[in-house]
């Protein structure tokens, strides 16, 4: 088959452009959250199971490895939520000018940091309470 023309791919763009970098991060965090979905369903199935099954799942889900996973999921969730809302605003046709997009990238980053700090602190408190 004749090779068809393809649109320029990842390597051709200047990734230092704020909006592009922040847009690809939205994708990456989305994939991370999809993996987190596995943990959520595993937990729900454990809740629906017997006491012993729940205890085993609880032990696995509170291990050190999963604490790292939660940190990653927390970051991914906060970013994907904030950046996703910006994508919804973009879909309405607003904020697409270059200067606006660069400015909103900083808003997204700041809002993500604040959200991570608030939820992270709360998670830390909740973890202390639960153990």
């Amino acid at each position, binding site marked *: 088959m004749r090779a068809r023309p393809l649109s320029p791919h990842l390597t051709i763009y200047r990734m230092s452009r704020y909006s592009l970098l922040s847009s690809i991060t939205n994708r990456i965090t989305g994939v991370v959250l*999809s993996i987190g*979905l596995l943990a*959520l369903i595993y937990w*729900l*199935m454990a809740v*629906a199971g017997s006491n012993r099954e729940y*205890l085993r799942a*609880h032990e696995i889900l509170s291990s050190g490895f999963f604490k790292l996973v939660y940190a990653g999921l927390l970051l991914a969730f906060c970013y994907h*939520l904030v950046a996703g809302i910006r*994508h919804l605003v973009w879909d309405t046709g607003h904020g697409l000018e270059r200067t606006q997009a660069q400015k909103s990238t900083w808003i997204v980053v700041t809002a993500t940091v604040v959200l991570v700090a608030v939820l992270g602190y709360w998670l830390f408190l909740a973890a202390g309470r639960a153990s």
Partner: protein
Amino acid sequence: MKSLRSPLGTVAGLGSAKSGVHHWWLQRLTSIALVPLTIWFTVALLSLPTLDHVTVIAWMAQSWTALLLVLLVLVATYHSQLGVRVVVEDYVHNTGSRTLILVLLTFLHAFLAVAGVFAVLKVAFGGAS
């Protein structure tokens, strides 16, 4: 005006299947729904006094909790399916592996959705102890 479609395309029924924005629109619709659902879930989970089995079951057995959890599971798995599908379509160029990965991911998401809904309903209807 002369039609822009080729005679062969017209005869073979090729062209728009009127589903061009379907995927795009559902991705937006599910993302809007997920904003309140995920915030509710995070706040509700972090507000639980402990995460032992009895506490979690008592929480999940409440009607509103179960209802919102079922919605969360369905909307989140659908949103995830739509999202990873685009990622695979964009970055996996080999047609064979792309199709295979998409089939497996669709099955996985269907499994996750059914498992999640089943688990929540089982607890809500008093099936867990």
